[in-house]
């Protein structure tokens, strides 16, 4: 019996052993075959020391002026340094350069954590003028507004001004008579992404024409899509588009003037381009037969990023000059002083302190009434970097005291300031300044979108806020639209995204006179 029981125990134990072996084996296999999860690398495997000031000056200076550390808040510097090195890598500079990490460390050590925008100081009293506002939709389908330029011009009637509008979304130039009770827009010409339009009698036939600077592309590009189009005015009030220049980078502005005192209008062209293309061009008018206009281009400045090229006699020598605002990394305003023969001498009117200054527009105007043309200048471009509000953006007055460079007077801090024009808004005989802003991302702040800088004494301005928060204004013009002696405002809107309520593309701020 004992032997039998012992044998039984052995078998039970064997069976149990098999089960345990299988179970244990299974567990073992599971553990053995499951690979350990990969861990993420925790810290960089090597370190880099900060670049020296000399190294940073040298590497940045290869392309542009040295950007001071306080031009960006600390957290953005790495991205900026990376952009710089991307350019460097594609360039032909053979300078020895420090590592990008060492340059980033240099800036991170010196940059402020934030760049606070100071609260503006307003004039104690009320705004000296009252306004009545109207919003105009452009004809056609219900599109998101993308106006690039507005102008107050005399087209067919010397007494009745019209509002001239460049519509980037619709690829057209339009005009409206503000007295028209039905607000009927006339499409004057269809062109490729018009950036700027000026009225001029180019061929001298007594009929007003329109010169259009065409970007040729809605988006930034180095493609040679820019052109200068002449909308030739016909006797029946229509316009015939004639391309005077194409196959160049994006064109932002064109102006006509008789620089050679020969009775012919030559052209100056701001070919903005983008990163690789772009120049300032002079087009000499050699036309003898206007059925075949002949303009011969010549590069007068090979820097890209030209925005505006207004014409005037800057140095008072009787010869016409022009001024170019050259943005991008250059951020420079240059006077091209005419010698009366189609050649120019260059003088720097003013250079921005760093390549991220964001130049956006200029107007030549004698702001303080000293009979010399000054430069009214805005720097508020945020379409490149919109990550933060820039406290150095706003409206500047570059006073012409007869010497170069001009004397710089900051007039108002205004992030996103895109255009400023001078006009006598309060009717007191001196010029005031109107400025508008374009800020697609307001960072949740309530900011001025239209301001009036009232000139209270020659060269002294006080600030009034005309409108807040609607920072969709890319351009503006001021002039007497109704023959009442008052300066009324025309403001053009540019909405980059559709996720906003659609508003009129063009706004009229009708000046109702003194409060």
């Amino acid at each position, binding site marked *: 019996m004992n032997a*039998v*029981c012992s*044998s*039984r125990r052995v*078998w039970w134990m*064997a*069976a149990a052993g*098999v*089960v345990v072996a*299988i*179970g244990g084996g*299974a567990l073992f*296999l*599971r553990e053995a*075959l*499951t*690979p350990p*999860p*990969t*861990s*993420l*690398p925790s*810290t*960089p*495997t*090597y*370190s*880099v020391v900060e670049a020296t000031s000399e190294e940073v000056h040298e590497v940045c200076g290869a392309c542009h002026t040295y950007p001071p550390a306080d031009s960006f808040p600390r957290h953005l*510097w*790495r*991205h900026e*340094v*990376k952009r710089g*090195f991307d350019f460097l*890598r*594609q*360039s*032909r*500079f*053979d300078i020895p*350069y*420090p*590592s*990008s*990490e060492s340059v*980033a460390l240099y800036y991170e050590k010196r940059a402020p954590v934030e760049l606070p925008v100071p609260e503006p100081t307003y004039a104690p009293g009320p705004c000296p003028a009252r306004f009545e506002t109207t919003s105009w939709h452009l004809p056609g*389908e*219900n*599109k*998101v507004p993308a106006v690039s330029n507005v102008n107050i011009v005399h087209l067919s009637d010397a007494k009745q001004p019209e509002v001239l509008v460049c519509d980037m*979304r619709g690829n057209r130039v339009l005009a409206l008579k503000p007295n028209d009770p039905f607000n009927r827009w006339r499409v004057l010409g269809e062109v490729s992404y018009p950036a700027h339009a000026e009225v001029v009698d180019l061929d001298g036939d007594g009929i007003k024409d329109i010169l259009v600077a065409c970007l040729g*592309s809605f*988006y930034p590009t180095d*493609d*040679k*899509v820019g052109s200068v189009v002449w909308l030739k005015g016909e006797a029946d009030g229509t316009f015939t588009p004639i391309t005077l220049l194409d*196959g160049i980078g994006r064109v932002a502005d064109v102006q006509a003037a008789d620089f050679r005192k020969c009775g012919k209008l030559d052209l100056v062209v701001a070919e903005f381009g983008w990163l690789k293309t772009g120049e300032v061009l002079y087009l000499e008018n050699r036309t003898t037969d206007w059925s075949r206009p002949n303009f011969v281009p010549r590069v007068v400045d090979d820097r890209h990023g030209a925005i505006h090229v207004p014409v005037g006699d800057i140095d008072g020598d009787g010869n016409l000059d022009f001024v170019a605002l050259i943005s991008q990394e250059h951020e420079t305003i240059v006077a091209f002083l005419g010698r009366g023969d189609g050649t120019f001498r260059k003088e720097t009117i003013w250079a921005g302190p760093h390549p991220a200054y964001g130049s956006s527009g200029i107007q030549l105007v004698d702001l303080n009434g000293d009979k010399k043309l000054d430069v009214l200048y805005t720097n508020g471009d945020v379409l490149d970097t919109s990550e933060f509000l820039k406290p150095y953006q706003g409206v500047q007055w570059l006073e012409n005291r007869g010497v170069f460079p001009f004397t710089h007077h900051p007039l108002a801090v205004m992030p996103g300031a895109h255009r400023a024009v001078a006009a006598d808004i309060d009717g007191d005989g001196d010029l005031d300044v109107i400025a508008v802003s374009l800020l697609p991302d307001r960072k949740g702040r309530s900011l001025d979108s239209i301001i009036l800088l009232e000139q209270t004494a020659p060269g002294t301005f006080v600030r009034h806020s005309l409108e807040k928060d609607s920072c969709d204004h890319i351009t503006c013009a001021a002039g007497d639209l109704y023959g009442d002696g008052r300066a009324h405002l025309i403001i053009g809107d540019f909405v980059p*995204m*559709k996720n906003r309520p*659609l508003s009129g593309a063009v706004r009229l701020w009708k000046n109702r006179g003194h409060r």
Partner: protein
Amino acid sequence: MAWSSIFCPSRWSRRLTLFVIASLAIVTLIAVGIGWDSYHLREGRGRAALGDSEGAVDQLRLCMGIWAGRFDRHLLAAQVARLRQDFEEAEAELDACERLRPQAETLADERLALRAAEGDVEMAKQRAWVLGQTHPSSAAALLNAVAAGYILNGDVPQAYVNAEEALRYVPDHPEAAYHRGHARQLMGKLDGALADYRLAAAGLPRRQDIRLRLAQLLSQLGHPLEAITYLEELRQELPHDPDILLTLARLRLDEAEADEAQRLLQQLLSHHRDHPGALWELATLALRQKQPTEAQGYLRRLIARVPGHLDGHVLLAQLASEAGNPEEAQKLREWIAKLDREVIRVNRLIDRATTLVAGTESPSAEPFTASPAFASLGRDLAVGLTAQGRDEEAMLWLHRALAADPKNAATHRLLADGYQRLGDPGRARWHAKRAQAPVGES
């Protein structure tokens, strides 16, 4: 016979006893096997639901395929294949599932997920909404497939919305974080994208695609050292991957380590002869090192590989002119003039198509982007972009074209060619098969 005696082995023959024990062992083995498979399938499903394709594959490998688990095994294999974007394999596995249990709800859901990941998202969105009430984790998994589909189609805002929704169901879901990060990156919200990629990489540390994306974004945002650390680790795992080698080489150049960069670029060329990115970097590097002859050599190879490479032609023309070779420079300039026109044509098409996608053209009208005409525009664009060596952009527009007209054979054919060129034969086969499907041109 007393009952007790029945259980006494002494009454049994030795052979019978052995039989009983063997049976016991077999039953135990089967039970353990089933338990083993269930455990690993459950684990695998859990990992796949989080987007951990590699972890799910490990679990799948450990499954023994015991009959009772065959359906689940195929289903898991289909999920893994979908996550790896091997749609052909995923389809085959789902067909195997269908033969076993055609009515299974999980099979239907996985089919929806696969369709969504391929870009056909509508049904999956509706199902996710239903599942969201009772099975939030299943809804999140489906929404991830939807987000992946939207990314493929180039509808980035919708990808963002669906990934965000998945994260609402399962907070910190790594796959959802990855898709949201990808959408944010495409929308230019780079800091948010970086945070999402970090979250995804921490949750799915073995996903090489996520780590590569994280490294590339770190590089873009100017964190070279951290990016290099990730990329060096990835290089150990995938020593010949062109994206890893090229990104790493560019970073080394920025870190003033030209020799190491050059070595990496040569290594890249040794495995991917005439890789356009490597040739361009080597050409510009040679120029900076005052070696114009070498630069010309690389540029000639580059334009032979990509005849529409505008920058390559421009630089070569400049060098030919500087080297006193005006005839060659002139010939190149003539070709550049043609290329300029072609680049403008293609970029104009992009502007037009981008405006249509953004909906700024006519917000109130019927979306044009859902029409065969848009698909045709997308194909035109893709052909032009491919000729210029802009392969990734070309693929994006092809997927947009496919979303507008899903059964178009021509689009599938172009996608098949594109994936073949990009070294993804699985997806190339998948699209080639659809290009030959009887539906034909739509």
